[in-house]
């Protein structure tokens, strides 16, 4: 009932919160929160395994010999900013400004890609330092955790790319809005996960 009223109140246009205007959109948002809860458990498990195994670096370098905080700090900064730009995107969506929205999401994509490039570079450095997947339990759990996160970032970049293409064609509608909203939720999520990784893996890894 409420939905129709809401839609009717903005006669002919898009409602104020287009992502929640349809039952479909509402379902998607609830479902996506549940998905993120499940994802949190996944990352928690991998992080648990990392904490349990990080001491076993065998003959390879230990965490404090390996990590280069300045580069990681830049990665962190980039990802944090990209979270911000996705918020700006959603704000533009609520203001029904599709051009601005698309702009901010494009920036988000670029920042995400930059993060991925930096991370790949970082991994290459580690491999040179003898820190390889099969080297030790520490390396295995490190690459699994970071790799899962990196794969999530990559997926997010490709996803938002698809959305930007759709958005350019269709603009903001009650069908496209939930998609952008979910993508931004997802993006915040991988940002939050990164903050945990930064703390648990990198900062705590510097403590010998």
């Amino acid at each position: 009932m409420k939905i129709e009223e809401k839609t009717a109140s903005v006669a002919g246009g898009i409602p104020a919160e287009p992502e929640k205007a349809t039952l479909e959109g509402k379902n998607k948002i609830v479902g996506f929160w549940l998905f993120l809860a499940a994802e949190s458990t996944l990352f928690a498990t991998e992080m648990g395994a990392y904490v349990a195994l990080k001491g076993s670096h065998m003959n390879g370098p230990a965490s404090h010999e390996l990590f280069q905080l300045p580069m990681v700090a830049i990665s962190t900064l980039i990802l944090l900013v990209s979270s911000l730009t996705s918020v700006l995107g959603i704000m533009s969506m609520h203001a029904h400004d599709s051009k601005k929205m698309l702009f901010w999401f494009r920036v988000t994509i670029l920042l995400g890609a930059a993060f991925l490039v930096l991370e790949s570079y970082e991994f290459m450095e580690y491999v040179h330092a003898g820190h390889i997947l099969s080297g030790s339990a520490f390396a295995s759990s490190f690459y699994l955790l970071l790799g899962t996160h990196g794969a999530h970032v990559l997926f997010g970049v490709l996803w938002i790319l698809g959305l930007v293409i759709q958005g350019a064609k269709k603009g903001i509608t009650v069908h496209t809005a939930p998609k952008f909203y979910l993508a931004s939720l997802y993006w915040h999520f991988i940002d939050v996960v990164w903050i945990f990784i930064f703390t648990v893996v990198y900062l705590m890894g510097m403590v010998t």
Partner: protein
Amino acid sequence: MATLIIILILVLFLGAILTGGYNKRFLERMQQSDLWSWITTVDHKRIGILYLISGGFFFAVAGLEALLIRIQLMVPNNAFIVGDTYNQLTTMHGTTMLFLVALPILFALMNFIVPLQIGARDVAFPFLNSLGYWLYVSGGLLLNLSWIFGGAPDAGWTNYATLALNDYSPGPGVNYYVLGLQISGIGTLISAINFITTIVNMRAPGMSYLRLPLFTWTTFVTSAIIMFAFPPLTAGLFMMMFDRIFGATFFSTAGGGNVTVWEHIFWIFGHPEVYLLILPAFGVFSEVIPTFSKKRLFGYHSMVFAVVLIGFLGFMVWLHHMFTVGLGPVANSIFAISTMAIAVPTGIKIFNWLFTMWGGRIRFTTAMLYAAGFIVTFVMGGVTGVMLATVPADLQFHDTYFVVAHFHYVIIGGTVMGMLAGFYYWWPKMFGRVLNEKLGKWSFWFFYLGIHLAFFPQHFLGLNGMPRRVFTFEANKGFETGNMVSTIGTFLMTIGVLILLYNVVWTLRKGKQADADPWDGRTLEWAVSSPPPVYNFAQTPRVRGLDAWWLEKVHGDGKLKPAEPLGLIHMPSPSHLPFIMAVGFFISGFGFVFHSWQVGALGLVVVFIMMYVRSFQEDHGYHLQPDELKGQGVDS
């Protein structure tokens, strides 16, 4: 070279799909076939039936495995099936029963019944519902293909490292386990999210949380458990996969890995897993017992509370599977207490069921027989559970036939009896015919007697020193009688299942037509025709209390009160994408099983492309004219 050919075929395959095919007429004919309509269906009722069929198929496979196991153990020093083959049988029996039979058959009931019980037209995500189903099938088939290509997994359903690592299980068997469960696990997770969203968002007006039927409540809690239990399994399987396929060293001690990490992760998933199997069965009994006692459920609120509490405590007890690992008396004691605590809410449920029957008028239909048989059987399984929590005693029980007896008592006495009760209870709703009661009762008595014969003696086998997962036992050590009786029990259970199968075939042909409400039911699913129309409810009902349908029958005029005017009904359109995505996952899994990361990646690319296709699709569904509207001059 093989990889190249596979890639080529896939590219052609993809091209055909994306361009609409090379032969339009063939495609059209295909799209009109029944098979295609089942493959592409997004109707929760049809998906429920699909779950039932595949669950039944895997049940036959895993049941046969159990039969072979019991034949080998019929007499001492038997040489029928020994060594690795035997280990493959036990591993696959356990894995298949838990992942591919129990949960999917419960999903069948949930899928069919829950939307009807909450007065909804469909689930929240019909597309994902279909995807979840096809991923389950694809994972299940991948797992079972191991019998044909390269040998089945043989490290137990618990798959403990280091036995499961390449050094000690060199064949592809464990790879199948890892990837099959990974794929079907994604499907399960998707379905769980779908159920929760459905229950949160799609309830009919007036259907508040404390008016939800118990089966819906247990579906809700079960889905929540899945949501938090399956991701740890996913993570664990990733580690196992990386260890086996990419040379990581999570569990191999040579690289500094730790075998206990797998045990923790597995049981953090594994214990909630068994609770998410038992809760829906509790839900079924909470529907069946009131219906056939003609009384409302005794203590509805405490029943709901108990379900939630069991779901929560299920995550706090995993260590009781690891008392013999040697994690110290403090950890063991804490987990002993938390395990014992679960007996309390379970006890509440048992007594509430008994007091639902108390003062009622009990009709012993087959469904009710299963429910009644469940109570004592399950209590016997439950109390041995508490005994297993007694740490020092568990040091004797652990990994013996005592444990085997315990979990078969709870899983067969609880989950399977719940499945069968639900099967007889809801069959008329699903297929429009009532299963033959006489055959049903014969089948029940064979099955019921079989359970006790098969598993009761196993308690004593275990106590007298027979470890589990052994392919033989010595003569003259007092194991002969127990094992022989146990095998005979298995034969009786088999006869029970065969009668059930015959009953199904007989009923589909000659069974009595079912009217909408054959059992004098209490919940909303009995208000619509059997089988229900594709849109479930012509008008969304307005719910006025607990046991909504009973309320209307006893206090109202026997009709549901509509919450909306008659009108066109919005329906989701069928889609073939879930099927193709499942095929993609299957290819990927198969590739990884044989260490070909190229094929593995390719399958994932197919999946990803399908996700893109789906995202770009303008699919707003279609509108349907309900039967009630036809002839009233409304066009669709």
